[in-house]
């Protein structure tokens, strides 16, 4: 799966978690860029991302996430 493929799949995750079909994501996007991206939705986002890609993140990996691009790279690393 390429990083573009991961970003496309991740877009579906974002749309599901935030119930927003119009949401657009980019590698530089952070929680500060989207009002509904609060701590509760962040939990749902991580859980849904793990379930969708069939991967598990460590707490240290979760703690280091700053932006969407970090999440894409993390998933890519897990999928090898």
């Amino acid at each position: 799966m390429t990083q573009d493929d991961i970003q496309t799949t991740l877009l579906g995750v974002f749309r599901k978690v935030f119930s927003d079909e119009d949401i657009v994501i980019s590698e530089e996007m952070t929680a500060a860029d989207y009002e509904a991206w609060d701590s509760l939705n962040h939990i749902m986002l991580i859980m849904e991302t793990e379930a969708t890609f069939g991967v598990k993140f460590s707490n240290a990996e979760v703690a280091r996430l700053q932006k969407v691009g970090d999440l894409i790279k993390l998933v890519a690393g897990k999928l090898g």
Partner: protein
Amino acid sequence: MGNMSEIVIWNPGTILFPIANATLRLYQPHYRRNILLDQAAMGWIDNLVTAADKGILRCDAADGWNASWRIKDATKFNIFDNAYENSAMFDADATLVAGDKLTCKEVLELLIDVGILATQWPIEYKHDKQHFGDAFRGSFYEQIGTACLMNRRIPTEWWADQKFEKNRLSTRLTAYHYVQDRFLDGFLEDHVAGKSIIEVGCGTGYYTNRMAQVSDKAVGVDYNSDYIDIAKKTWSGQGEGDATYAVLDIIDFSTDQPELIAEPFDYVIMIDTFLFLFHESYQPQLFSNRKTVLQNLAKLVKKDGRILIMDPHPLFLTPFFGDPNRPFGILESYNSHYFRVAPTLAEITELLEDAGLAIARIFEPKPHPDFDKVNPKSHKFYSEVPMWHMLELIVR
């Protein structure tokens, strides 16, 4: 390491407890952080305290630094097993072992992070989380969020899991049971027998069902339809005295069963819900509409009825220490909500005054004596320092 030097200041607010096995527990009250350190490092600490004058610490033998000391972060936010029984956030199972050695640089980074050492005077305290995964910073709610993130748990499930058994039919044998439940049992029997009562924010319906056993009429309402579905499934068929449940948005007063609230009630009660009206970011809708919420509660109660607010006490989550038979608390703030989430008395009365309500009486429940058999230290502390209070309100 001998060349390592830092300008550091020992935080005079750090509290030291000698504990078993030649270990010191260092407690930083502003961040509720705990560190275990070799007792042999006491001379080094003394040097640090003295170094407040000279302001420079060198990690070498001349300053008493000994690289063989063991040190460990022993902070634990055990949210899934009743945070209020470990509000000092201490991992009591943590011990120092041979491998717990850090370099001087690592020690400095850790002690600066937990606020035991500072790099400037006056010390600047950073209470806010820097990111979602930033553990041990932020308010109680925010730390719940991080704990849920790290444990992949949904916060609403955490709340129910902490308070109730898995089947939701009873409270766990914690302070919820020995303080809140036992007090409410007595209060309901004494005051609500033969009366009508509505519980706003009833969640999965546990308390409404108890009210139904003694009252003439009991209704449970919640804005969350998932909770109401669970309440109906869990408590249906309980026989005579069944409660009824409905979805009600207490902000706009919309409901799926208007007939249930057509007549005013003798009592309106909210349990562990009122505090959410005071937190700007946790549930912003409730915060910005808090006056309306209270005015809508007043619409539900008879002219001579009472509104009951059972809520965490302003002293809720006070960390406690010391002799298990005579524990004491350390209060590092009251007006600021760095960690605490319960409103102050001034915040409560300002809102009540604004909404046309007044306090007729305040109850401060003590634990049932049986709590002593389950958790003697918590029993002793919460016998002295209230964990919940119940405000009995009238409409002015």
